[in-house]
C-alpha cells in the first residue's frame, strides 16, 4: 500500500545511519551494499513470497480495512508489520541484523487510536513465516487459517493498543493481484523498483474493542505485500496514496509522488472485479486537494478530487476523521475515506511528508 512512501521514510529512519554515519565501523557507504535488487522477469512464487526476504532491505505486510459496525457507524483499521534490515542476513539471537516494526490503528468518526511496536529479530518476539503463514510482533498477529488454498485466503488479524484492540477474520473473495509487470513495480524514472503484490478482495467480520465497549463489524480489507532495497530519490518529499474499493467491485490503487520542485508524478493500477490488473499510464491519474485540515501542527489535505478520464472516473474522497494522524516514530496520515461522485465506495488514504 501506501507503504511505499512510508517504507522510504522508514528506511531513512533505520538505515540512514549507513549514509550519514560517515564510515562508522565498516558500515557501507553505498546504501545498497550487499542487498538484493529486484530484477524484472523473476516470477513470484507462493507461498514462499508470503514470507520474509531478508536479503532485501525493506519489506512490509500492510493491511487496511473499511468497516461498518452493528451500530451503523463507519470504522477503519490498519495493521502493518515492517521489516528493515541493517545487513542482508538473518541469524538467531540478538545479533540478527533485522528489525521489526508494527503499526496498528483504529479510526472512528470521532477518535483515532494508534499503537506502535518495535522488536528485534532472532529471539522470537516478532517475525514472519510463510508455511504456515504467520506474521507477528508481540501479541499482534496475522495468521493464515486456510487449510488447503493459498495461505492468505483466510486470515485472522489481531492487534492491541493501550485503549483499543481488534480481532478480525478475513476471507479473500478474489485472487492475489500482481502489481506492475508480474509484480515488478517500477518506482521512478531512474529505475528504482520493488516487488509488489496485493490481496484487495478480503471480506471482513470481527470485533473491535473500544473504550466504550465491543463493537461487531463487517467490511472489506486490502493487503499489500512489498519488498525492495532501494531508497527513494532524495528529491522526492512525500506521497499521497489511495486504495479504493468501488461498489461495483472494481478497485483502484494510485499514488502521487511529490518532489521539491513542486511537480508530481502519478501512477497506479486499475483492478477489474475479477482481479485483472491494468497498470495506469504515468500521470493518467489526477490528484487535486479539496480541503486542507490542521492536523498535528501540519496542513494536511484530507479531502481530494480524483480523476481518471480513461475510466470516466471523477470522485471526491472525504476523510472519515480528519485527525487520522499516525503519531509514530515516523509520523504520517492514514485513514479511511468515503468515495462519492461518478463512482461510490470506500477506501484508504495515506499521506506522508507533510512537515509542520
Amino acid at each position: 500500500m501506501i507503504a511505499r512512501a512510508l517504507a522510504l521514510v522508514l528506511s531513512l529512519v533505520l538505515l540512514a545511519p549507513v549514509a550519514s554515519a560517515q564510515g562508522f565501523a565498516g558500515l557501507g557507504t553505498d546504501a545498497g551494499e550487499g542487498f538484493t535488487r529486484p530484477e524484472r522477469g523473476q516470477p513470484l512464487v507462493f507461498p514462499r513470497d508470503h514470507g520474509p526476504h531478508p536479503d532485501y532491505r525493506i519489506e512490509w505486510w500492510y493491511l487496511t480495512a473499511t468497516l461498518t459496525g452493528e451500530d451503523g457507524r463507519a470504522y477503519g483499521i490498519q495493521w502493518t508489520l515492517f521489516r528493515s534490515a541493517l545487513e542482508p542476513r538473518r541469524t538467531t539471537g540478538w545479533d540478527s541484523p533485522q528489525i521489526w516494526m508494527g503499526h496498528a490503528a483504529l479510526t472512528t468518526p470521532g477518535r483515532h487510536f494508534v499503537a506502535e511496536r518495535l522488536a528485534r529479530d532472532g529471539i522470537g518476539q516478532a517475525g514472519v513465516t510463510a508455511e504456515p503463514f504467520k506474521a507477528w510482533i508481540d501479541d499482534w498477529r496475522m495468521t493464515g487459517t486456510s487449510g488447503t488454498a493459498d495461505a492468505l485466503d483466510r486470515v485472522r488479524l489481531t492487534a492491541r493498543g493501550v485503549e483499543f484492540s481488534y480481532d478480525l477474520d478475513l476471507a479473500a473473495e478474489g485472487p492475489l493481484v500482481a502489481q506492475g509487470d508480474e509484480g515488478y513495480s517500477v518506482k521512478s524514472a531512474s529505475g528504482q523498483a520493488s516487488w509488489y503484490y496485493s490481496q484487495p478482495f478480503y471480506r471482513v467480520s470481527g470485533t473491535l474493542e473500544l473504550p466504550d465497549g465491543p463493537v461487531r463489524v463487517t467490511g472489506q480489507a486490502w493487503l499489500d505485500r512489498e519488498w525492495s532495497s532501494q531508497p527513494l530519490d532524495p528529491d522526492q518529499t512525500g506521497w499521497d496514496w489511495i486504495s479504493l474499493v468501488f461498489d461495483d467491485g472494481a478497485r483502484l490503487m494510485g499514488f502521487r509522488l511529490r518532489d521539491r520542485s513542486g511537480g508530481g508524478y502519478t501512477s497506479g493500477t486499475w483492478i477489474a472485479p475479477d482481479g485483472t490488473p491494468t497498470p495506469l499510464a504515468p500521470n493518467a491519474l489526477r490528484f487535486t486537494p479539496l480541503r486542507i485540515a490542521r492536523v498535528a501542527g501540519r496542513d494536511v489535505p484530507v479531502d481530494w478530487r480524483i480523476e481518471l478520464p480513461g475510466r470516466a472516473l471523477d470522485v471526491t474522497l472525504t476523510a472519515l476523521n480528519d485527525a487520522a494522524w499516525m503519531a509514530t516514530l515516523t509520523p504520517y496520515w492514514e485513514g479511511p475515506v468515503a468515495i462519492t461522485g461518478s463512482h461510490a465506495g470506500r477506501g484508504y488514504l495515506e499521506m506522508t511528508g507533510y512537515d509542520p
Partner: protein
Amino acid sequence: MTGAALSALWGHWRRHPGQSLTLVLGLALATALWSGVQAINAEARASYDRAAAALGQNDLDTLGASDGRLFDQSAYVDLRRAGWLVSPALEGRLRVGERSVTLRGLDPLTAPLAANPVDLSDPGDLAPFLRGEVGYLHPETLATLDPTLLPLRVAPALRLPLGVLIVDIGAAQRLLDQPGRVSHLLVWPNQPRGLPALDAVAPDLVRRAPQARADVASLTDSFHLNLTAFGFLAFAVGLFIVHSAIGLAFEQRRTTFRTLRALGLPAGRLVGLLAAEVTLLALLAGGIGLGLGALVAALLLPDVAATLRGLYGAEVTGALTLRPAWALAGLGLALAGAFAAAAQGLWRVLRLPVLAPAQPRAWLRASDRGLVVQAAMAALLLILAGIIALTATGLIAAFVLLACLLLGAALALPPLLSGLLALAARRTRSVLGQWVLADTRQQVPGLGLALMALMLALAANIGVGTMVSSFRMTFTGWLDQRLASEFYVTGRTQDEADAIRALLAPQALAVLPIWRAAQPLAGAPGEVYAVADHPTYRDNWPLLRAGPQVWDRVADGTGLLINEQLWRRSGLQLGDRLDLPGWSAPVVGVYSDYGNPKGQVMLSPDRFTALYPDAPRLGMAVRIAPEAIPALRAAISDRFGLPDALMIDQAAVKRFSLGVFERTFAVSGALNVLTLGVAGFALLTSFLTLAAMRLPQLAPIWALGLTRARLARIELARAAILAALTALYALPVGLAMAWTLLAVVNVEAFGWRLPMFLFPGQWAVLGALALGAALLAAVWPVRRLARTPPADLLKVFAHDR
C-alpha cells in the same frame, strides 16, 4: 535625620575596621563550613538522583526472579507475545583494566523512554549500538578508564549515571558470557487493556516497585546526616563569634544610640536602620562564606567521593557544580544567624530609655540570677539528653541527643566557672589574689560565649578523635583477623577461575572460596558468601556472638553466620531462623564486619552452590607462605594474562582498606580542625572586646601601684586559667560525645558498635592547643595594655562616665 543617623552608625564600623572584619569573617566562616557541607551533600544527592533516573528506576516497575538471579530471556518473549510491554535488561560488573564498571545491557527498541539510552529519532545512533559496536558512558567515568581496554567504542553521554556502561543487551550477554540470560525486565507504565495476568504468563517473576531498587541513596543517608550534623556544629560555633562581635558593636554604640534618640530619632527607625545594617553585613558575609564554602567543598569532595565509592559503591562526581539550592540556603542561614545574634541588641535599643546612662553593659556584673537561669536550662538539656540516651532509637534521635548534650554542657560552663571562681576567692587570703579571682569572675559573662565555643570545639575534637582512634584500633585488629589468607585471586570467567584453582591447589596450603551472591536481607540489599570449613576461619574469624560448635554447624549446613549489621537490623538472635529463598537455617554466630553497610550471611560452599547455582564463583583466598607469592603471581600472570588488580596480597588489601578508612575520616578531621580554628578566633575577638572595655577597671589597680607589666602578666595568667578550666571541663563532655558516637550514632548509621578506647595523649595535645589558643588570643590585648600610655589610664578618672 535618617541620613545623619546612618552616617553616625556607619562611622562606628569605619573607626573599628577590626571589629567589622571580625563580624564579617565570623559570619563568613560559619556560613562557609555549613554551606560547604551542604554543597557536598547536594552534589552527592544529585549523583544518586541521576543514577536512579538514568536507570529508569525512579518510576518504572521491574520484573525479576524472586531470588534476584538471572533468568532466561524466553520469559521476556513470552510476556511480549502475551501483550505485556516490558523490556529486557542484563546487568553485571565489567572489569576494565584495574577498574570495573557496571555493565548494563538494554534493548533500545523496547526500552521505555526514561530508560532508553538511544534516541530512536536520531538514526545515526541506532545501528552501531544494536551491532554492539558502541556503548555509552558518562564522560567523567570515561576519563578514569583506559579506552584501549574497553571492549567497544564508547561515546560519552552526560545523562548517564557515573560508573555505568550502557550497551546493547546482545553485547552485554556476550561481554558477561551470559547468552540468553537477563537480570530483570523494565515494565512500561501504561499497559494495554485486557492483558492476561502476570503470574499466568511468567509465574517465576516478581514485580517490584521502583523504590525497592533505589538503594544507594538510603544506604548513604546516614553518612550525609553525619556531615550535616558537623556542618551545623560548625555553624553554631561560628555564630558565637558573630554574636560577640555584634553584641560588642551594640554595646560600644550605646552612647551614639542615646544621642540619636535624644536628637529625636524614633526608636522604630533606629531599629530599622540597625536591622538594615545587619542585613547588609549578613549578605556580604554570606556571600564571602558561600565562596569559601565552595572552596571547602571542592577541597573535600574528592575525599568524600572516594569514601562513598569505597564504602557504599556509590558513584559521586568529583567535580562541584554551583546549585542555587544550597547557595540560597547558605545566604538564608547567614541572615538568620546574624539576626539571631543581633536580636538581643535590637531589643535593647528598642527599649532603651532616652535618658538612661549610656554605661556599657559589660561594666555591670552579671547578675547571679542570669547565671541561675542558664544553669537551670543546662540541667534541663542534660536531663533530656539522658532520657533520650536511655529511651530513643534512630539516627535523628542520636543527633538530638548529641545536640542536647553539647548545648547543655556549653550552657553549664559559665555558671560552673563562676561558682568555681567564687569558691576559690573565698579561700584566697591575698588581696591581689582575691581581686584577680573576683575580676575574672566578673569577666565570665563577657567571655562566656567564647569559652563555650572553645569548649564545644574541644569537646567535638575529643569526641570525634576518640571515636576515630577507637575505630582505627578496632579496625586494624579486625583486619588482621579477617584477612588471614596471604593472597587473593579473582578469575575473570568461571573457566579461568577453575583453571587458576587447579593451578594453585598443589602449591598452596589451602585455596578457600570467596563466592558471593547478591541477596536482599531484612528488606535491604545484602550479600551471601560461601565460607569453607578451614582452620583459617575457625582460628581467626572475628565472632561477636557464637553458639556451640558454630563452625561445625556451618560446615554441615545446619546453621549460618550473619554479620553484625544484619544482626542489629533484623533483631535475629542466636538460634532464630533466617529465611533465604529456598532454604532457612538457624543463626549460629554473629561476626563483626566493619566498613560494610550491607547485611551479610555466610554459609557452607555446598549450600551456596545449591542456592545460587548461577552465581559466578570467581574469587579465592590462598593460604601460602608470603615469600612464595611473587612466583605464584608471575605464574598466573604468564599463563592466564590476569591483570595485577585481580591478584592482591594481604598487605595490599590492608593498605587499601586502611586507605578507605582514612579517607572516610579525613572529612571529619578537616571539619574538626576548622571548628577549632573558628573557636580560637571567637576567643580572640572576645579578649579584644573585653580588653577595650576593661581599661576603667584596671586604672584604679594601676593607680594603687601595680605596674602595667604586672597587670599584663596577671591578664595572661587569667586567660590561661580560664582556658585550662574550659579544657578540663571539655574532657568529660567530649568523652560523653565519643560514647554517643560509638554506641549510638555508629550503630544507627552503619550497623556496628565499637569498643571505646581512651587516648590521654590526644587530650594533652588538645589541652595544650586550647591553652596556646587562649594565650595567643590574650597576647595582643595584653600587649596593648602593657603599652597603654599612663595618660590614657589617668583619663579614665577624668572621663568617669
